[in-house]
């Protein structure tokens, strides 16, 4: 099982995502933004960071990377894609996911251990969790406030496409406490908090983020 991890200029969590993929039991394959080649991977992760320095808008420049054209095509055919933090922002800019991530409501970058609740466990990235399961993984971003229009919000809620929600006080002003969503088909997931930083209690708040990386293996075996 090969999972591609894309590096854009300014990507920061690519090595962490690759480590998490390997911990989960798959093989991480580095993908370079400028090379239009998915190297026969079975799934793709867009990791966190500040691609292109967040210039213009977070993710707005990366969506035009040569590799993204292939990601959009493959996602349309059902390939599992996970965007974490800046990766989520790139997926929104690429229109693989609806809505946008805007400045945190208190206008500060926020790094903290965040409790989230898994709302949908039928995606290829969340199937090893139970619905309602609460986990603690790091949240760290400056622009993590999920926003969309009322119609989109109703659609996301109505179709069960909210994948995870923040528990407790809203950390960043996201609508309906949304921490992660999926596309209609469920194969593309965007997540603001960072499961790749919670694969070992030694270096993270828990090992509960590992579930995202074992889920994808289950999905492939099925």
């Amino acid at each position: 099982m090969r999972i591609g991890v894309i590096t854009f200029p300014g990507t920061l969590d690519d090595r962490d995502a690759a480590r998490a993929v390997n911990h989960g039991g798959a093989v991480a394959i580095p993908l370079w933004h400028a090379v239009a080649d998915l190297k026969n991977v079975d799934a793709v992760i867009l990791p966190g960071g500040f691609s292109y320095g967040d210039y213009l808008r977070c993710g707005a420049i990366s969506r035009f990377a040569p590799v993204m054209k292939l990601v959009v095509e493959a996602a349309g055919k059902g390939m599992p894609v996970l965007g974490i933090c800046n990766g989520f922002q790139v997926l929104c800019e690429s229109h693989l996911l609806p809505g946008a991530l805007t400045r945190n409501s208190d206008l500060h970058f926020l790094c903290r251990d965040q409790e989230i609740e898994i709302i949908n466990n039928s995606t290829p990235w969340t199937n090893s969790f139970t619905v309602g399961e609460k986990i603690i993984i790091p949240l760290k971003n400056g622009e993590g406030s999920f926003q969309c229009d009322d119609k989109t919000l109703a659609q996301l809620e109505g179709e069960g496409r909210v994948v995870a929600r923040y528990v407790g006080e809203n950390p960043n002003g996201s609508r309906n406490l949304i921490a992660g969503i999926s596309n209609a088909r469920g194969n593309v997931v965007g997540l603001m908090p960072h499961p790749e930083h919670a694969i070992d209690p030694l270096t993270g708040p828990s090992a509960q983020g590992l579930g995202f990386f074992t889920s994808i293996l289950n999905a492939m075996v099925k």
Partner: protein
Amino acid sequence: MSLDTVVIAQSTPDTKQPFAELGLRPDEYARIKEILGRRPTSSELAMYSVMWSEHCSYKSSKVHLKQFGDKAPKSDALLVGIGENAGVVDVGQGYAVTFKIESHNHPSFVEPYQGAATGVGGIVRDILTMGARPIAIMDPLRFGPADAPDTRRVLPGIVAGVGGYGNCLGLPNIGGEVVFDQTYAGNPLVNALCVGVMKHTDIKLAKAAGAGNLVVLFGAKTGGDGIGGVSVLASETFGAGGSTKRPSVQVGDPFVEKILIECSLEIFAEDLVVGIQDLGGAGLSCATSELASGGSGGMNVALDRVPLRDPSLSPEEILMSESQERMCAIVEPHKLSRFLEICAKWDVTVTAIGEVTDGDRLEITWNGELIVDVPPRTVAHEGPVYNRPLAQPAYIDEVNSQSVNVPIPSNADEIKAAVLKLAGAPNLADKSWVTSQYDKYVQGNTIQAQPDDSGMVRIDETTHLGVAISTDANANWSYLNPYQGAKLALAEAARNIATAGARPLAVTNCLNFGSPEDSGVMWQFAESVRGLADGCLEMGLPVTGGNVSFYNQTGTVAILPTPVIGVLGVIQDVRTRTPMSFSTSGLDLYLLGQTFEDLAGSEWAFLHGERVGQSPTADLAREMRLIELLLAGHEAKVFSAAHDLSQGGLSAGLTEMVLRYSVGATITLDNAGIDLLSETPGRVIVAIERSNTDVLKNLATQNEIPLNKIGVTGGESLTINGCVISLTELREAHTSTFPRLFG
């Protein structure tokens, strides 16, 4: 306007030059003329003025700093010592670690965000320049009074700048300090530390060796920012139509720096450079002269080849520009094409601007005309050296002769009030408001970060080897006794590493002081350096490098002498580290070390406006025995937790421990008032399973460290001699201060 060339300088010896406006004294200007045998060209004048500035030449501090070399302890760990961009120490398993701390104080007062951001950027490039991958940063910060209006301008900007730059580079921020004092109003201190790791074989040095090798400039284009003083030259030499004046504070672009890091590491991995230097203070003036004098001395540079953001910049401005995110490498000609390919992959601008020659002069041309022709060592390393007058200031005897007069709590109500007051004091309160703006998780190797005693990162995922770092200063003690203050800060930083189980290995320092032209300040500086050098010799820890920041004063009022000491240590297996607090009930709590009535320079005295008395005297032999005890106990797995006591004494230490994992403690003290508030150095609280009692007692006896049981863990409160403080109440006091002050 006309170009000032070497030929013109030879033929117009009497041209008046604005040396004084550039900060050069008449005798310094005369010495430049003597070195060159003629008047300098305006470009040469620009170079000498900036390289001979206090900031670049260390002209007031050099005579004192040489003690770090003269008194250096024998150490097998030191691979690269003082003088390079950063020192390098051997941490075993073939790994070398480089670390350094620098100040960016003045720019951060003028423009807090960019000043702090470029402070981080600069120290990260110093570490990168050694050939290392930067792996973590720390930031000791000091501000005016917490409730002062200007602090509300400066602090949020500086914190956002440190975070904005460091987060975007993908470097975990693993610790630092936030301290408030009146003397820092108008003089905030922004010190930034970076640590990097490499293999021994990958160490790079700043030297231009090998005639015919190319001088290659890569990274951001050169702009008009950070030119500062040279605008004097620009306005005098050039009239209308010249470049517009830009802010003297540099503007950072962390995205470009992140790209530059990855690009440089790929270049290093393929062994494509002979020598390398980053462009920081004094920009190209510094990089070319230091590279040339690090080699045989000969170098030609065609300055007109430098890629510019602003095409109207004059050669003088290009030489002085402190535009960020630039590096200068020495590359063998046959490796240039691969070098260019890697830069192209990362979209990094790269230009060969010159070559190494077999001569001994640095020659810089502008469109073919010679505008600089100097012996590079005279620019980079042989600047003026001053033995400035120093004299013990009058205040010393005055404050030392007084004793601290503060209320000492004696009943349960007073004890509770004192503990809560300290828990919420700005210098001791929870710093999450600050640290939650920093990414501590990126790179996935952070083992410890604030509020732990030290920052700790793993450097090998297979062997679990790691390093720990702590930075400390106690400016109150340094004010009362700068010699002891420096030693005590060193001891505290070393202890903060040892509590986790890491063995202290090497020292860096950032010496923040007022004006060296004030003999009292100069005395504080000299005493601090002497204390640090003596302390390092006694503790067997080499100083690997550091930074001096003078002129931190407003009018005649200098900041408190603030030598920030960073100690780096190594831990063989990060999984075994001793945590700073306990997460279970029923453990016994012991105090290692004895408590005396040390209230002078304490936080309790500070809160009562008392800065008088005698600082404690550092007993470094005892400190070293305590460290050996901590390391042996860690090795024997005796400790469930260990936490250093420093500012705020036992009161603050217990507060931090019980709140860390929300497990309370019941404490019994003979003399609760003094026991809670005193800041006697060399003390550590440890938590142990009762079955380890004998082992601990033996370790204490062997190492001659007093040991006293002070209580047990458990419950929902911190209870001291029957005075009950609920964790909820304590947490509220500890965590509400920063949000209340800063929103």
